[in-house]
């Protein structure tokens, strides 16, 4: 029991920690859920219509990568919030609250506080310096080839690892919610994502994300209101009932030891904050708006939506404690016979789904199920576009062709890259079906925090940064992150089966981020080459542009 709890907690932790991930454990295929399938089909046809509309408007590379820079701050804020409100963020956090009460809130807060800091320190400079990808910014005054290669590899690694997790999650969700076979679900998600991205580019991807964010926010709002109405809109009454029925009683109202030691707490804090600031699909969203003003607004709206959503998931989790826990309708009788307690069908991450049935009946269950699936589609589309951009814009156009490339060719490459990424994702999604993939998401986040973020941050803030420092330090951060995840409790103990982990912490960020920063610092200050001198001198011009936007990418094409 203890081991099971540990594994599922680790899963939930990693899942929640990155706003992405999977449904835990073995999943039983459920009977066909017709209303969910119909609602999902309506969503799919709607989004395909948008893709058709977007395809007609996507002519240039700028259209493809950044929707022509014509997205408004509000729309972009919705889309960023959509990237955050993944299926795992919705199901994972409400499931965590259902299981542990207060601890769910800790994770919500961890995600959210990265946002203001990104806004204050990064978003504006990023917007003023970049064009399509964050590698544009990192390579602004440094040597294109090595920096772009490093940044593109960091992006692609992050994107593929994330995609695997989303795919496995999609497959399991579909089995549970729709009653369709796993492989079919994975192929369906992959195929739709390829369609959205290749034909509609960033414009379609953004609108799929906005619509889904709207559906998810309304669905979650309805659930939270229904729960509150049940208790006469008294939070105290809701909490009192939850404390009464939950096996942990009053303990669910306080932190329960999910983050127990100071090192883990600080490391998690760093992973959440720096990891977010190094996620290529999130960074790319700052280039879809017309100017720095809209970029700032989008962070403001995104913070509002995400914060609101997390408060809703907290209420939903507590609602599930009261209305799902101990409700024989949602009980997994087979599992109960083996392990006792009162396990719910499909595991704790299904708490919100069962609650939707409890408050809104079969129709609303269908709605929430369809939205959960739509959520995965939207998130994988954003990820794939970021991965394809890294391949076509960074590797193909700027490294391989050294910037001498026409737009038509570059777009063609990005479409081919999308299809290939889609196929790889489908294959890996099927291959990883039975694996514990929690580490995959943890790894994606660790790479974003330890390789992508330090290079990006120092390229904007530190005049003494040189190519040598960035490449060696960034690579060291990447290698350290990968190594510590392998030697850590999730891979070393749970996957390789050793007794104790070589590296005791689940989150390597505190260590790998430090290695990256120290490495970049050391190999920059000791770089006495002629090139390094020029790079340091170029900082001033870069800084002026990053501060004022003089010479920055122009306004919208739409």
């Amino acid at each position, binding site marked *: 029991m203890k081991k099971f709890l540990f594994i599922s907690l680790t899963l939930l932790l990693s899942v929640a920690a990155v706003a992405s991930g999977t449904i835990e454990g073995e999943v039983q295929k459920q009977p066909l859920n017709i209303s969910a399938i119909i609602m999902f089909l309506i969503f799919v046809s709607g989004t395909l219509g948008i893709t058709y509309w977007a395809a007609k408007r996507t002519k240039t590379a700028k259209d493809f990568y950044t929707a022509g820079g014509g997205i408004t701050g509000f729309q972009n804020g919705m889309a960023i919030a959509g990237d955050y409100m993944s299926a795992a963020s919705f199901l994972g956090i409400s499931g965590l609250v259902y299981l542990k009460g*207060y601890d769910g*809130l*800790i994770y*919500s*807060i*961890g995600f*959210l*506080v990265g*946002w*203001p*800091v990104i*806004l*204050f*320190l990064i978003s*504006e400079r990023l917007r003023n310096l970049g064009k399509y990808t964050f590698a544009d910014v990192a390579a602004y005054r440094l040597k294109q080839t090595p920096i772009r290669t490093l940044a593109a590899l960091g992006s692609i690694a992050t994107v593929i690892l994330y995609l695997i997790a989303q795919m496995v999650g999609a497959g399991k969700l579909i089995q549970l919610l729709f009653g369709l076979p796993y492989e079919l679900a994975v192929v369906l998600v992959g195929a739709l994502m390829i369609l959205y991205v290749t034909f509609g580019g960033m414009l379609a991807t953004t609108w799929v994300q906005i619509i889904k964010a709207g559906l998810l926010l309304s669905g979650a709002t309805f659930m939270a209101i229904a729960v509150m109405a049940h208790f006469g809109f008294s*939070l*105290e009454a809701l*909490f*009192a009932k939850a*404390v009464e029925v939950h096996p942990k009683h*009053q*303990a669910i*109202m*306080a*932190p*329960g*030891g999910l*983050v*127990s*030691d*100071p090192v*883990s*707490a*600080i490391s*998690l*804090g760093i992973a959440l904050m720096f990891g977010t600031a190094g996620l290529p699909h999130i960074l790319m969203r700052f280039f879809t708006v017309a100017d*720095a*003003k809209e970029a*700032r*607004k989008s*962070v*403001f709206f995104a*913070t*509002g939506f995400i*914060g609101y959503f*997390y*408060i809703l998931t907290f209420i939903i989790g507590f609602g599930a404690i009261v209305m799902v826990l101990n409700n024989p309708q949602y009980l997994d009788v087979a599992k109960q016979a083996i392990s006792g307690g009162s396990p719910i069908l499909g595991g704790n991450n299904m708490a919100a789904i069962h609650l939707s049935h409890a408050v809104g009946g079969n129709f609303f269950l269908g709605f929430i199920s369809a939205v959960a699936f739509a959520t995965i589609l939207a998130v994988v589309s954003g990820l794939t576009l970021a991965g394809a951009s890294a391949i076509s814009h960074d590797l193909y156009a700027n490294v391989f062709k050294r910037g001498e490339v026409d737009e038509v060719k570059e777009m063609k490459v990005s479409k081919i890259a999308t299809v290939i990424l889609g196929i790889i994702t489908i294959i890996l999604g099927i291959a990883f079906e039975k694996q514990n993939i929690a580490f995959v998401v943890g790894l994606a986040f660790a790479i974003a925090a330890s390789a992508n973020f330090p290079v990006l941050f120092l390229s904007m803030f530190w005049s003494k940064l040189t190519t040598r420092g960035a490449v060696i330090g960034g690579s060291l951060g990447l290698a350290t992150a990968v190594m510590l995840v392998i030697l850590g409790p999730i891979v070393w103990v749970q996957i390789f089966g050793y007794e104790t982990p070589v590296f005791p912490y689940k989150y390597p960020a505190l260590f790998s981020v430090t290695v990256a920063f120290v490495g970049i610092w050391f190999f920059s200050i000791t770089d006495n080459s002629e090139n390094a001198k020029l790079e340091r001198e170029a900082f*001033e*011009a870069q800084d*002026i*542009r990053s*501060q*004022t*936007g*003089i*010479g920055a990418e122009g306004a919208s094409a739409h």
Partner: protein
Amino acid sequence: MTKEQIEHVRNNPKYQKLVKERSRFAWTLSIIMLVVYYAFILTIAFDPSLLGIRMGDGVMTIGIPIGVAIIIIAFILTGVYVRRANSEFDELSHQVKEELKDIA
């Protein structure tokens, strides 16, 4: 950008004002956010029972309003920054750009 232009922008008092005030503002807000967040995280790490203190006679603990307050603080801080940046700083940076136009 030529050396003269860089020199010119750097010596522009409005540019200096923009950079100085915005940096100070951005770092101040960032530090407020970090202090609030890490105070919360370190409380959880070292003394989680502190957040479990009940309010009055009910089951509600002080941890819940504190948690929600941090979410609201994050939202308010972004609002404060966006408001000032989209008016005062954008105006300053617009003026800097206008002045640079004359010498370019």
